[in-house]
């Protein structure tokens, strides 16, 4: 392509080479933190991993064995799944409204705008909101309240990604089905949703991966606990919170647990991302 550049002066060519180098260097610089983080995670975290690390709860003992992270893993999985169960039907439903029924009405514009607003809300503010509406004066901290805070966080992500995917379903398909006499709900249920399904799954998984790593919304909703529990009515532990608490500890054993838990969390998130990518590949090939 640059075969035409025979007229280019050496100075311009040098500038070009330098700037290409700068851009390449910047790209590599951008990857330095990633490499460092992953390297540190693995080199420090893998040492903490053991069978008992995954199968015991934190003991909270000051001098003895600090225990593992079982309750944190179980709590994160449970709360994120409940959050998904809440956020997905609502998010996809709102997206369906926007794409299938809303048209260009002022109401659908308002909904879209406010969902956008929700996207930008800092996650800690969701925690605040749940605290003042559900925690205080309503029986204290509980896992399900953490799930709702996470669901609020996931909702705009799910809605926006679902809307994008639903818009990709060709209108011709909808019109063809309608012209054949199918009622609207069957068109939605049998044509629109199945066509968009892989894309929807990708969006949901990405939202899920994001929620799994969030600490701030859980800080004063689900709090933390030591024991493994699936009782959403009580406090629930979670990986991010376990890490957050262990980081601020002086004991090397607890700091090591933080690294081990962080590695676990990142692996879980990467696996989810991986599955999301596989799902989206299925939809495009």
């Amino acid at each position, binding site marked *: 392509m640059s075969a035409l550049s025979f007229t280019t002066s050496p100075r311009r060519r040098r500038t070009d080479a330098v700037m290409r180098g700068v851009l390449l260097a910047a790209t590599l610089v951008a990857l330095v933190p*990633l490499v460092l983080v992953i390297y540190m995670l693995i080199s420090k975290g893998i*040492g903490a991993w053991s069978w008992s690390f995954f199968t015991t709860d934190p003991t909270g003992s*000051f001098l003895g064995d600090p225990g593992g992270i079982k309750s944190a893993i179980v709590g994160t999985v449970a709360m994120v799944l409940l959050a998904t169960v809440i956020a997905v039907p609502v998010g996809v439903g709102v997206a369906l409204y926007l794409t299938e029924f809303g048209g260009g009405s002022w109401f659908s514009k308002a909904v879209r705008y406010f969902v956008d607003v929700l996207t930008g809300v800092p996650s800690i503010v969701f925690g605040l909101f749940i605290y003042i509406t559900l925690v205080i004066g309503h029986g204290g901290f509980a896992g399900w309240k953490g799930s709702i805070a996470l669901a609020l966080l996931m909702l705009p992500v799910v809605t926006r990604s679902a809307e994008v995917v639903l818009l990709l379903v060709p209108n011709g398909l909808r019109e063809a089905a309608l012209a054949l006499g199918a009622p609207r709900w069957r068109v939605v249920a049998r044509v629109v949703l199945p066509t968009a399904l892989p894309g929807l799954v990708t969006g949901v998984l990405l939202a899920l991966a994001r929620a799994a790593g969030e600490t701030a919304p859980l800080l004063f909703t689900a709090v933390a606990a*030591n024991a493994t*529990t*699936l009782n959403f009515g*009580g406090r629930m532990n979670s990986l991010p919170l376990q890490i957050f608490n262990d980081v601020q500890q*002086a004991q090397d054993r607890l700091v090591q647990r933080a690294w081990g838990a962080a590695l*676990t969390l990142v692996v879980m998130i*990467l696996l989810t991302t991986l599955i999301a990518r596989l799902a989206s590949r299925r939809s495009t090939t």
Partner: protein
Amino acid sequence: MRSRQWLALAATGALALGVTACGSSNNGSSSTASSGGGSTSASSSGSGSGSSTINGAGSTFAAPIYQQWGSDLKGQGVTVNYQPVGSGAGVAQLTSGTVDFAGSDPAMTDAEERTAAARGEVVHFPMALGAITASYNVSGLRSGLRLDGSTLADIFLGRVTKWNDPAIAALNAGVSLPSSNITIIHRSDDSGTTRGFTAFLSSVSPEWRSRVGVGRSVKWPTGTGARGNDGVAAAVKQTSGAIGYVEQAYALQNNFTFADVRNAAGRFVAPTLASTSAAANGITVPADLRLTVGGSRDPAAYPIVSQTFVITYRDLCRAGVKDASARGVAKFLQYGLGSAGQGALRQLSYAPMPSAINQRAVAEIATLQCNGSPIAG
């Protein structure tokens, strides 16, 4: 060591490749990393006759004690969730009914008790005494640096900024002090340890009293804030040239070096079990047990000490605590104030309350109620 680094490096590459391969190639490669979330056996509900979960929050000063007792009690059917969030947060959570008991180093003030009265009358159980150490991380400097109150105040006011400041050198003839900067670590949360520490500084430095004052949280003139005793300990540990104030158990646990501090009798005293106990000699104990140690004239007493309380409601059930949890709180207190709990206390280097006070606290357990009927059995 070396091979582990290589392993990590290789794994970094593998993990990154595993994910990127999936992002770029057509062939969906299978996952490379082992899954960590396999075990989901929920073994939470023991639901035996006496089993219960109790939630507490507050003092990080006393957290080692309650966590130790909690793990001792696990075999007896009481699960203790104690969140070390600071005394202020503990009192706040007790008042808003999100915990069954609070850990707090200072007793609740009259105003706080009035706020809490919406749920009922509170009871204070004095549990232990602990020394607040001035711990430092200065290479080449061992435990036993001599400091007096006014120098310590000047350090935390940001006026003494180097370790070889004449004020410190004057107290430590013959000790070679480095010229490095002093980095101050203090609490960022609402803390009983801060209250104990600032109470001492105020008693010896008029400028501290007028500029900063006494409180669970104060407006620090300088320094880095950290959450909890453990957070301060962590920051001191990671920062060379740092000084911070932590409860003795944290200092010992982390092999910190800490100062001998001049007491009211003019002697430099190291924080020990004996010197902490001495600080409680001759204190006055009010009827509701809301005592405050400090300012002891005993020549053997370490000057920066604090008491710590468990606080709960007289009638727990009316305050919103479940029946089983109310019984769990009573059991927890009985264990802690009894001989086994007090023994664990000493192992963690806290000083027990004088036995007269301990007996009054034990007697107080019998007055705990659930909907009007006593719960301790």
